[in-house]
């Protein structure tokens, strides 16, 4: 047995080291002009390390022939990138506020940026080092979370949408209230994420998504409880892809860019922006206070807005890019997508940072909704 274990472990070792042998390969395609290459080579980042902390699956990573953005950045600058992931703003925040780590680039969402700024956890950017900021469209500048354009460079923009299967939903919905329709019992998918689900109920009630009135939240919770009773929705996150693509469910609330991904696998899907309003969100590149390589971080942020890179990312992520060069590019596959780039801006609201009391109330109400308890 000892021998067996020894063999097993040694092979595992070999296996795990063999697996990393093929990681430094450079791309066969040259994406960049000599000018760009010179610029990045002249930054003096050779030998430094940039710690990038991003959402999972939120960068073009070289799969299916796309650009490996991180590898390209390493190649052009000579810096080394430690690229790690998180799956929620809150997890990222816990890690960052805990301390003991230094990240150079993070990608929080709007309301989280607001919070990080208010807690003094972000550094002001030096836009001299981010010349590509000129590509950012005006719509994505001076927004409520960073009014004076000091801390962030917008990375992606998106909305929530109502997705439906035209084989199962006869009428063309234009309102969130179809998610309460008993005809679709057991056919509805909701967010398994209290804030996004509450926003739908709040839109129906005509409330502000960021209301500080506890009674508003309770009213919204009652509406969600009613929905649970009436249609017994399944609360999902990423399962939504499989369940909508397979045609098993008729209706879902999810993000606009992801609708485009789903419709590629199931052409029977359609979407609408419900008239009561959707949530508009921004994810932006920021530099936290704990950075140890601010120049490298700024170079990375700048690199992310190079037209070629921004295009590769936009093609990979499927959310709306704020980069004017991408939007103007005729080869961009999402050009003209009504879901991602709506020609008429839908009725929408932003998420602001909620205070602790409201957050606590919201999660307490959410527990009660799921447990099927009466909302008082």
């Amino acid at each position: 047995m000892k021998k067996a274990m020894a063999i097993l472990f040694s092979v595992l070792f070999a296996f795990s080291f063999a697996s990393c042998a093929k990681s430094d390969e450079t791309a066969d395609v040259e994406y960049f002009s000599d000018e760009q290459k010179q610029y990045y080579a002249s930054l003096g980042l050779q030998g430094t390390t940039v710690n990038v902390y991003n959402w999972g699956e939120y960068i073009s990573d070289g799969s299916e022939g796309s650009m490996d953005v991180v590898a390209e950045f390493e190649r052009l600058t000579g810096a080394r990138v430690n690229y790690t992931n998180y799956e929620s703003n809150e997890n990222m925040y816990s890690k960052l506020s805990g301390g003991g780590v230094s990240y150079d680039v993070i990608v929080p969402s709007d309301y989280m940026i607001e919070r990080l700024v208010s807690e003094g956890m972000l550094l002001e950017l030096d836009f001299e080092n981010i010349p590509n900021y000129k590509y950012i469209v005006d719509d994505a500048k001076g927004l409520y979370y960073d009014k004076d354009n000091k801390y962030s460079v917008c990375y992606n923009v998106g909305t929530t949408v109502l997705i439906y299967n035209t084989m199962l939903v006869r009428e063309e919905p234009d309102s969130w209230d179809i998610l309460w329709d008993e005809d679709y019992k057991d056919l509805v998918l909701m967010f398994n994420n209290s804030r996004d689900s509450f926003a739908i109920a709040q839109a129906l009630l005509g409330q502000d998504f960021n209301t500080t009135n506890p009674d508003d939240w309770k009213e919204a919770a009652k509406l969600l409880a009613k929905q649970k009773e009436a249609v017994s929705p399944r609360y999902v996150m990423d399962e939504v892809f499989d369940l909508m693509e397979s045609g098993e469910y008729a209706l879902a609330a999810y993000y606009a860019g992801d609708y485009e991904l789903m419709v590629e696998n199931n052409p029977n899907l359609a979407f609408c922006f419900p008239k009561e309003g959707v949530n508009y969100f921004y994810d932006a590149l920021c530099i936290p206070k704990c950075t140890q390589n601010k120049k490298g971080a700024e170079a990375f942020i700048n690199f992310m807005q190079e037209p070629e890179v921004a295009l590769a990312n936009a093609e990979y992520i499927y959310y709306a890019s704020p980069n004017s060069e991408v939007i103007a590019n005729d080869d961009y596959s999402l050009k003209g997508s009504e879901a991602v780039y709506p020609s008429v801006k839908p009725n929408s609201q932003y998420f602001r940072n909620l205070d602790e009391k409201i957050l606590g109330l919201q999660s307490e109400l959410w527990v009660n909704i799921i447990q099927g308890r009466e909302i008082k």
Partner: protein
Amino acid sequence: MKQNLSTKLLRQPYIVWSVLFILAPLAMVCYYAFTDKSGAFSLNSISQIPSYLSVFGKSILYGAVATVICFFLSYPFAYALSKAKLSAQKTMVMLVMLPMWMNFLIRTYSWMTILGRSGLLNKFLSLFGVESIKFLGTPGAVILGMVYNFLPYMILPIYSVLSKLDNSLIEAAKDLGCNRLQVFKRVVFPLSLPGILSGVTMVFVPCVSTFYITQKLGNGQIMLIGDIIEMQFQQANNYNLGAALSLVLMVLILICIGVMNRFGSSEENGGALYI
């Protein structure tokens, strides 16, 4: 004296380790449970516990059911395993654990593919004219997920104890006129109790605080205490309530294990666990 020194050397590092990495974090949990956001002493979090009592009860019930099912599935398996050919035993022990080397998330996805409304099991059943059955979103699916994920942790300790059972005792019992059932009841079972207690602990304890399985296999409609604690940290940003809930959870689990041990150690050998 020399004996004493070596024993000390054996356990001292562990005691130091436990104080550093088990008790210190535990103290931190206590600190959070009894303070508020500003760090001042407060019973606010603890006072919210009563509204979650039913969830605690439900979690313990789910954990207990999963543990009992695990036990009844595992014991015969471990027994048969201990009687198998010696060389096969080693391989099979590995085979029991091997599925758990696949990523937990991906395994759970796989169960969703099997149990879904248009999933594999329903497709298979429809061949026999059975109408689509709702598996996901039921307590059964959640318990199945728990049983699946923790079954090896019940099989292995029981097997480990059974594999070295003193055969002469069984022979002796037989010689004294015990039939097979009596041999099992009077000899084999009591002797395997330490392994059972270890297995039950290793299944019950993580089951009660599990979180991901319930959300995914329960269609997001079933919420156990693990999910709620998770939510306090990840959505509500309320470390204090999260810590208070997990402190209470810990006390409840300790009580459950204590009861189990009292019950288990009525026999001579039940010394595996102490509370």
